[in-house]
């Protein structure tokens, strides 16, 4: 009995940590696809950029953890602003297949660039002493870093939700997701809104990639190998939704951890079967807008 309880606690704990990382990375994708109708298969590139910036700054330059994290976000935001202005902007409202070609091209380039600079092996995450080791919560011990991840993730998610609910910028995003034309006609500068929300989503992805470098290893194939997981979160959560991806991340994170723990042989198979079942039950995702 206690053994089963320990397993449940362990799965919930690790699942929650994975869910936080998945949500931080994917929420921007949900906004990009919901708001601009843009099939952005290159979203993982920003998470990877954040992960590489973070691990390199900490591992090679000895930059402290919070500074490295801030720098990782800044790097991803700058890259995303450049790409949005130069390339993405041309294809808003355009052909979906061109968007697929463009973003897959960016993914291919990111694979080659990462391989060229960092080589094929995955980057180690050097945790600061304060966050390494284990945390004793009385009834059992938990890895400190993952505990920190869960707390930090919860704070970020709360801040994001409050920001989108309470600020004018958040209201504008919600208005534009609900009805783009109406938002334009009441005078919202949607072009600027696109750019800003794209940068915000990329920054969050970098945060997820950097914080989660310990869970989702940073290697050149990052954007391609994890694409399916990000897409599952977005499609199960519901396009354009902010909360949907959170529920989907929780589901995917715990299910993935549980299946890999309980039935390692067929773990991934069950994840895909579950995704298929949810999408058949709710084709627009759990929290998708009805249009």
């Amino acid at each position, binding site marked *: 009995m206690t053994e089963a309880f320990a397993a449940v606690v362990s799965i919930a704990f690790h699942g929650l940590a994975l869910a936080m990382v998945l949500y931080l990375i994917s929420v921007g994708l949900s906004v990009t*696809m919901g708001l601009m109708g843009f*099939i952005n298969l290159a979203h993982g590139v920003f998470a990877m950029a954040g992960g590489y910036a973070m691990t390199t700054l900490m591992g090679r330059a000895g930059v402290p953890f919070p500074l490295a994290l801030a720098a990782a976000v800044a790097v991803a935001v700058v890259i995303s602003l450049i790409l949005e202005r130069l*390339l993405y902007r*041309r*294809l808003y409202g*355009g*052909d*979906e*297949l*061109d968007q*697929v*070609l*463009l973003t*897959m*091209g*960016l*993914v*291919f*380039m*990111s*694979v*080659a*660039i990462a*391989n*060229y600079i960092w080589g094929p092996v995955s980057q180690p995450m050097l945790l600061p002493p304060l966050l390494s080791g284990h945390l004793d919560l009385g009834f059992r011990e938990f890895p400190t870093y993952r505990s920190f991840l869960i707390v930090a993730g919860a704070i970020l998610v709360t801040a994001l939700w409050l920001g989108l609910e309470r600020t004018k910028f958040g209201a504008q995003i919600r208005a534009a997701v609900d009805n783009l034309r109406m938002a334009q006609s009441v005078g919202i500068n949607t072009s600027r809104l696109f750019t800003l929300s794209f940068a915000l989503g990329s920054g969050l992805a970098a945060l997820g990639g950097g914080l989660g470098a310990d869970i989702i290893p940073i290697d050149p194939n990052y954007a*391609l190998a994890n*694409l*399916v997981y990000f*897409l*599952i979160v*977005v*499609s199960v959560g519901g*396009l354009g939704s902010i909360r949907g991806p959170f529920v989907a991340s929780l589901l995917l994170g715990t299910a993935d951890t549980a299946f890999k723990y309980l039935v390692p*042989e*067929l773990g*991934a*198979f069950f994840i*895909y*079967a579950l*995704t*298929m079942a949810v*999408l*058949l039950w709710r*084709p*627009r*995702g759990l929290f998708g807008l009805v249009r």
Partner: protein
Amino acid sequence: MKSVAEAGTPEAMRAAFGRRHRLRLWEALPWLVAIAAYFIFDAYLALGAQILATILFALSVDLVLGYAGIITLGHAAFFGAGAYTAGILAANGWGEPLTGLVAAALVAAVLGTASGAIILRTTGLTLLMQTLVVATMLLEAANKATRLTGGADGLQGMDVWSIFGVFRFDLFGRTAYLYCLVVLFLCWLMTRRIVHSPFGLALNGIRENVGRMHAIGSPVGRRRLMIYTISAALAGISGALIAQTAQFVGLSSLGLQRSGEVLIMLIIGGVGQLYGAFIGVPLYMIAQDRFSAIDPVYWYFWIGLFMVLLVVFARGGVLGTIARLRRRG
């Protein structure tokens, strides 16, 4: 004025539709190039056979994507199913290639009908995800069924017999090349008939305006399922061709990369025009072969850059650009 009036009469419209599917002179071009390539590039026939089989794969994707508007990231499911069917038959004592192709087509078609009946009720991103998930589930299953598929090591020990008991598969790929060419030609003839038939026109209607097709009473669901099945069978044949000519099947034949790459090749050529596959596939695969011979790492950078530039400067792929230039000129 008179010509406009004439153009509207039923006879004129019927004649116009009749002309649509008449064979044009330039349509012989890909086949002449393929035959010429057999004599000129006789050192590269193995690559040539792969290209011809992949053209068939891209053609099958064009049928669902370009004509029925079904966006898929999981067509490797059918390609891989066909490859494994032909491979498992050949590895277990039945190496006759033509029946292997038929078996592959049947298995892929059954899989297409079964999965299509479930997933084709969705559209857009959800459908894209469903196709992806079907292929990935199949990949996981093949990975676990080690005794049948060889798992991660791939299927070994295929013994493919001679075609008609006469033409042996030689080391230089001569037989393989001609075999793939003939199969591709026959499948292309069939595909061409399909897209110009009333059924094909109905598919165009579904792609352009589903609501209106429902309104005029067209059985949209059944037609989508039908073309999905046909396309799956063609993809299965393509997979079987590659399995038989390479005498090996690996897990990558079911992978996301395979589905993604064929989509990219098709978009590069041009979607929905039947000939995009004939341009995009050779372009991509020859570039891949040349670049990866020079440097396997940079190759991805250059093809990625090429794709980005294509979107910026030549939207709609090679065929789309040609059409635009012709309209302008």
